[in-house]
């Protein structure tokens, strides 16, 4: 399989994730679409690592996974805090950051 095929899948998934981040209104689903974009980036990193025959790209993909896990923890914490404070769970309604 040529590397270009994997890069094409990565580009398509990245674009789908970007469109989802813009269109979704539930903050939970915005986070899910962010996961899509991060994973598309991971796929591109690993394809380039395979292309060059070096493993540095795979290490970087692992670091991206760590960053994604941290983002999920903080983001879901914010969602839970919003729900606790009885704020409407809708990104269009969230206009202020005041606790």
């Amino acid at each position, binding site marked *: *399989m*040529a*590397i*270009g*095929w*994997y*890069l*094409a*899948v*990565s*580009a*398509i998934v*990245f*674009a*789908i*994730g*970007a*469109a*989802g981040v813009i*269109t979704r*209104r*539930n903050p*939970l*689903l915005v986070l*899910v*679409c962010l*996961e*899509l974009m991060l*994973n598309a980036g*991971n*796929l*591109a990193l*690993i394809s380039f*690592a*395979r*292309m*060059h*025959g070096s*493993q*540095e790209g*795979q*290490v970087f993909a*692992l*670091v991206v*996974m760590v*960053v*994604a896990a*941290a983002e*999920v*923890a*903080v983001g*879901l*914490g914010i*969602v*839970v805090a919003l*729900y*606790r404070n009885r704020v409407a769970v*809708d990104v*269009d309604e969230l206009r202020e950051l005041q*606790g």
Partner: protein
Amino acid sequence: MNEVLFFIAGPLAVIAALGVVVLRNPFYAVLSLVAHLLSLAALFLLLYAPFVAVVQVMVYVGAVMVLYVFVNAYVGGATDATGGPAPTLRWLSYAIGIGVLATVVVATLGSSLKAIDSDGAKIGADFGSPGQIGELLLTRFLLPFEAASFLLLVAAVGAVVLARRRRGVLPGEDRMIAALDLLAPTGTGSMREGVGAVNPVPGALSAHITPSTGAGSPPASGTRGDIDGEDD
């Protein structure tokens, strides 16, 4: 064999990603993301990244997705209520998505990288094995490794701070007694005792705060609520 597996896993990844964006029910969207991550793990295996594929399945599908499903169930999992933004904005967002796709495709496939049409460089038999990745992480990439672990610690603390309850004790919670409180005799120095939640020593807290008053009134069971409600 590689081609067969790719043309199973690749379109599945794309279709599952579309499902994440399109499906109304958040629970189904999260399940679709699980399918997407599993097919991505298959693609990682095809690219000779076995360790990353296993980490993907264990960390993402195993841990992160459980977190998503749990928060989804906690928040209530109502369907995306009003069906998206106004039509003009929706078409604008689709146009932005297509524009991003065109940009990324031109940037990667349209680049003049010669190896992009090849199967990749020659690699050894243990390419991407846990041993190789671990050696890289502990020698050449030691600083990013430590920074990542520190980031995880900060994120865990931040998640706890963000998601804790901020309005003090609930009615009736003062009467809740942990099982350990019955087992341990008073004065054994547990953490709850330290903050005055269990059997507050008469005058201990008030003596610390205002030593001039001497043996003031004992801080009763309100101290726990004060500590929980104190924030910002």
